[in-house]
């Protein structure tokens, strides 16, 4: 492998990192080749000494993403860090599976937070507006009704109905019949047994779910930070410090 092909392979595997980081790494690598050449070493020899460019790139990716996450523990940075660590783990497969379980558990915590937030919004909205069932059905199922019939009887009596584009959105107000009258619904949002709760209770529960969502999100950020610092430490210790360039 010569300098050009080494740098190309390195650059390719680094793709996706911030441009200034890539430029920084490539500059240092070019400098390495020049310093080696100044000693009278050939390009092939220097490249061999550096080892697999893809492996170096994967390790560099992990350090860059780790630094970004340590600087700002956002979920975006976390989601960029996980594949970088996983990529490095592919060179140390024995640790890959248990090491991936922890981030995946963390991901479920984030998903729980999102789900709680969505439920909280829906239930709180229900408490405020009194609407406890939303059915969205495509207009096409109503196609066989005559214009007269459609004008005379709204499909769900005592439901509030609004046509948006090709869809009919039916909203159940309190004391309306339980079932929306549609052949099928594209989307059916029903707070179920919570409909029996008072408006205030629904609002309180919805807000409580939102608070829970926020708490789980922030807790996950902290947990993610701690877990990944521990994981990164472990990886740092087990990286091929004393092994040969040839692996796999």
């Amino acid at each position: 492998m010569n300098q050009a092909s080494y740098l190309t392979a390195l650059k390719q595997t680094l793709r996706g990192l911030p441009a200034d980081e890539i430029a920084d790494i490539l500059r240092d690598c070019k400098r390495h080749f020049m310093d080696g050449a100044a000693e009278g070493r050939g390009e092939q020899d220097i490249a061999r000494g550096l080892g697999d460019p893809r492996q170096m790139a994967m390790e560099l990716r992990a350090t860059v993403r780790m630094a970004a996450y340590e600087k700002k523990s956002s979920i975006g940075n976390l989601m960029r860090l996980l594949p970088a660590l996983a990529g490095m783990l592919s060179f140390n497969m024995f640790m890959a599976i248990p090491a991936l379980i922890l981030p995946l558990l963390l991901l479920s915590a984030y998903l729980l937070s999102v789900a709680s937030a969505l439920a909280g919004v829906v239930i709180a909205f229900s408490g405020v507006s009194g609407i406890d069932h939303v059915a969205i059905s495509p207009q096409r199922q109503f196609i066989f009704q005559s214009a007269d019939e459609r004008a005379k009887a709204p499909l769900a009596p005592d439901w509030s109905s609004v046509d948006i584009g090709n869809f009919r959105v039916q909203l159940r107000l309190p004391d309306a019949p339980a079932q929306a009258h549609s052949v099928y619904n594209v989307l059916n949002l029903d707070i179920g047994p919570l409909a029996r709760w008072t408006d205030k209770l629904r609002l309180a529960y919805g807000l409580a779910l939102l608070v829970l969502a926020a708490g789980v999100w922030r807790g996950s950020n902290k947990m993610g930070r701690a877990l990944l610092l521990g994981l990164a430490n472990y990886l740092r210790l087990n990286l091929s410090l004393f092994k040969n360039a040839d692996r796999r």
Partner: protein
Amino acid sequence: MKTQLKKGVLDMCVLCILARRDSYAYEIVQQLADSIDMSEGTIYPLMRRLQNEAWVNSYLIESESGPPRKYYKLGDTGRQQLATMRREWREFSTEVNMIVGEEA
């Protein structure tokens, strides 16, 4: 701690080299390669990690031929870290020698 030492010895060696004077990656690797068998490529992620921890700072020096060279400098936290690592290394090697010495 001990496992950390075993694998983290390379960090300590690099910090030690920088304690004497500022240096650049290629030069650091040459000095290490004299004593330790290691892949040259590992120096770059290693230097990045040392910088992430803020133990080491870097600066660029222009060169007549080719791209500027990145020099590394040991920071204050780096010096403290080196002292801690050296102490732990001494304790570790003393403990090990006590066991190994007894068997002889």
